[in-house]
């Protein structure tokens, strides 16, 4: 049963998306919405099933495996494998996808069917990325998940979306082609060594260990993921894109899509090319620290709330880079925890930003101010997530950042020092946001009357808050589960493969 669970995780959302599209063809919003919710719930159930099976299999190593030939002549298979890291990422994706579907109900009025189709196929693509262990398949999903997002941003986005979305696509695709080059290089090298053409992650990992050109190949992977993460100086696409995206898209982008970069860094850079990655580490970590400080600094100056959150998000992602390349287990775990926590907190912040834009009709914080009395409940949520994103102990982000810093400390004291300075800056911009939006005298006379929160909003924000709290006070389950399995650890899945 486990075998077919993995492809099901890709197929269910995709087919569900089709169903939603059909349902929405007659212009009705409700049915499409309902269908996509049902689909997500179905996906969640499968995921739960997989998780239970994996937990019974015990932590560490590879839990599940699926493989069938795709293009046999080139040794390309439809191969999925699942390890702890992938599982945690899948969960993050599933959790983030709910608000996207739930909250879209109000701000996607027309062509809802199409919207849900695009949304669900994005989610399917992301699921695929987190499970694919055939490099061609991985690349296929990697490119595939962007396309529907392109549509979502373009159709339902805000002003300036054309430029933003083109930028987004050129950056990601261009870097993706570099990765393609690296993949093929690895395959060819492997073919020359073993005279067998294969795209299998596990088989290639053997070659990746020993080939002299590993450094160059790794660079191709690294750049692709660095753009997606994003790492300074490849971050230029992100603020524009986040700002121009509709709420659902920016939630998905910041919540999950950025994490695919971190995931790739772990699975295809550090795990596949340990040696070269170690050589690259100082550079990568330096860039990570630079990103933390530089983008936090930029965030302070933004007047568009979405741009502020976007820059803050880049700044936090710097910690992931730091942790992944610290080369210590603790740093790696921290990076993973940070991915999850950041996904939740930033996603929630984008929900809030989207709602503000919804209610006030502007993203300019100069036009806001003194909103607390107008929407106390909502403001309290905002305060919570702002606190989370400035790394308040007891909330998820702190666990991630602390572990990352600890891992970094064992490598370099100065970097840790500067990263910690980033914590101070994060408090500056988070509180500046609170100050300019919610505190101070009421400035937004022009704004429409601000009603209470809708039930879905409360549910979404509440769940996110609870999860962050849980992750903050008792992260152990996640830390235990999310251990990335190395390609060399021969698991029963692999034995089945041979």
């Amino acid at each position, binding site marked *: 049963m486990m075998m077919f669970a993995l492809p099901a995780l890709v197929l269910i959302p995709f087919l569900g998306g089709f169903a939603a599209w059909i349902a929405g063809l007659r212009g009705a919003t409700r049915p499409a919405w309902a269908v996509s919710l049902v689909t997500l719930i179905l996906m969640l159930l499968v995921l739960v099933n997989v998780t239970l099976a994996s937990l019974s299999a015990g932590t560490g190593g590879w839990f599940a495996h699926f493989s069938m030939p795709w293009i046999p002549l080139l040794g390309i298979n439809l191969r999925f494998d699942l390890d702890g890291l992938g599982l945690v990422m899948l969960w993050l994706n599933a959790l983030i996808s709910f608000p996207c579907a739930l909250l879209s109900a109000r701000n996607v009025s027309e062509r809802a069917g199409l919207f849900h189709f695009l949304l669900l196929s994005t989610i399917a693509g992301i699921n695929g990325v987190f499970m694919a262990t055939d490099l061609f398949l991985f690349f296929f999903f990697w490119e595939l998940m962007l396309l529907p997002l392109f549509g979502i941003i373009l*159709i339902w986005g805000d002003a300036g979306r054309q430029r933003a979305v083109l930028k987004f696509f050129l950056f990601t695709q*261009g870097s993706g082609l570099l990765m393609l080059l690296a993949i093929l290089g690895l395959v060819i090298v492997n073919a020359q060594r073993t005279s067998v053409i294969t795209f299998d992650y596990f088989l290639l990992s053997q070659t990746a260990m020993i080939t002299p050109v590993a450094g160059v190949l790794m660079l191709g992977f690294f750049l692709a993921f660095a753009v997606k993460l994003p790492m300074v100086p490849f971050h230029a696409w992100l603020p524009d894109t986040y700002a121009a995206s509709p709420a659902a898209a920016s939630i998905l982008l910041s919540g999950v899509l950025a994490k695919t970069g971190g995931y790739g860094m772990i699975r295809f850079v550090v795990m596949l090319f340990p040696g070269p990655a170690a050589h690259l580490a100082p550079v990568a970590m330096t860039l990570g620290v630079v990103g933390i400080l530089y983008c936090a600094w930029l965030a302070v100056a933004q007047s568009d709330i979405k741009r502020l959150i976007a820059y803050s998000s880049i700044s936090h992602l710097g910690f992931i880079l730091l942790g992944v390349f610290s080369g210590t287990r603790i740093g790696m775990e921290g990076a993973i925890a940070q991915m999850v926590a950041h996904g939740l907190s930033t996603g929630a912040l984008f929900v809030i930003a989207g709602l503000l834009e919804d209610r006030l009709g502007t993203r300019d914080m100069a036009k806001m101010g003194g909103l607390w009395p107008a929407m106390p409940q909502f403001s309290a949520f905002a305060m919570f997530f702002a606190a989370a994103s400035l790394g308040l102990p007891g909330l998820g982000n702190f666990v991630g950042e602390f572990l990352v810093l600890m891992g970094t400390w064992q490598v370099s004291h100065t970097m840790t020092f500067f990263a910690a300075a980033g914590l101070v800056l994060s408090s500056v911009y988070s509180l500046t946001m609170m100050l300019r939006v919610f505190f101070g005298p009421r400035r937004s006379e022009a704004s429409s009357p601000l009603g209470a929160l809708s039930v879905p909003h409360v549910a979404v924000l509440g769940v996110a808050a609870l999860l962050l709290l849980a992750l903050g006070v008792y992260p152990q389950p996640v830390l235990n589960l999310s251990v990335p399995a190395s390609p060399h650890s021969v698991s029963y899945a692999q034995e089945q493969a041979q």
Partner: protein
Amino acid sequence: MSFSFLPNAVLVLCLGSLVQLAAISWRRHVARDAVLCVIVLLASLASIMLPTFLIMTGSLPLFSSDSWGSYAGALIILSVIAIVLMSRHGAISADPSVNSEYFILLTLATLGGVAMTCAVNVISFFLGLETLSLSLLGLIAFRNERLDAGEAAMKYLLLSGVASATLIFGFALIFAETGSLRFAMPDLSHLPEPMIGTMGVILVLTGMFFKLSAVPFHLWLADVLEGTTIPVASLVAVTSKIALFAAMLRYFSSVNLGVPSAQVNEILIVAVLSMLGGNLMAVVQTDLRRLLAGSSIAHVGYLLVAFLSPQPFGVASAAFYLAAYAISTLGVFAIMNGVLPQGRDIREWHGLFRRKPAAALAMSIMLISLAGIPPAVGFFAKFYIVAAGVSAHQILLLFVLILSSTIGLFYYLRLILIMLTPAPEGYVSRAELSMPTPANATLIAVLACATLVLGIVPGALVDRSQGIVVTPVPIPVHSTIP
């Protein structure tokens, strides 16, 4: 004493054109001629699969039939069938561009193309080439009521005249050196005056690059595409290029392109120029056809990457890429023809997703395929080419390819973006939407499906293309001067 085949397709097409002529001379009936044309093409397609009927013995082998030839031939015939399907636009009598001769010319063009694909002798190659270009000339000039058509034809005539002359002069020089008309690049090292031989090869390359419209010999393409009807434009952009690329591949099949030499360097430079030039040119175009011209130039550049990458992937990837390119480009042209015949200015395409969602969707699929994004076939084609390049360590070419296809993404995506967004204020649309004919509609549907299916399960086509081999023509050696 060597055998020479007369490929079935050539035979069938000759007979077919005769039949068509006879039919016309009996009584003109456009619909019938169109059907006849399709029948002839289908027959020739079927005949490719069959073993060769006619094996004549002679000292002068003109044609060989190998898998490469038949693959390219089949591709050519299919593309022409597609063109015929899209040609029947509007009421037949109303559109003078579609008369009986039109279909004969199409058949002849096919004949020329097929002949080129399997020619192993300069004579047969030249024959095919000129049959193709003369009938093209006729087709370009066909819309005699339009001044543009005339101008386009005139330009094509003059320039292709120059190109053919250059080509044939090159052959003459080589013949003078080697004393053989075999259609294969001579081994320059064993010639009395290698310089003349090299000159000859360079001139031949010039002619070929012109027909392929590779930078810097590309300038005619945009004008011609702009000037002529859409079906003919697609004939120029797809069929003739397939034919010529097939012939070129055969011409160089006997030499190892891995080792650098004058002509290899030239091809390399031209490939780089074409990839960059084509995309850069397309980025700034506002006329859709000129944009497509740029894109097709760029794709020639990509093809040359495969061309420069030897076995195992070289030929296979080239074959696959030809198919992918043909499908997507024909698709774009078919949609233009069916939905927005006057949609020259890209701004005409604003908001197509609202007005004609299905067509817009199909168009986007084609564009995505051309841009090389999954799940369209173009993605796998590009992947295949890059694989070939990597296996041949063509680092420079690959980086140029990545750079240029990133540039290329820009305008393909911008088109999709335009179709998704409503027209800007103050722009008055001159083109009105038209309903595609059933034939055209089916064509679009088939091509769209093919694009997606081949993109998701390319296995079958890969197997086919992996099986392809180019039987190298024996290299003309320098026989002693009596």
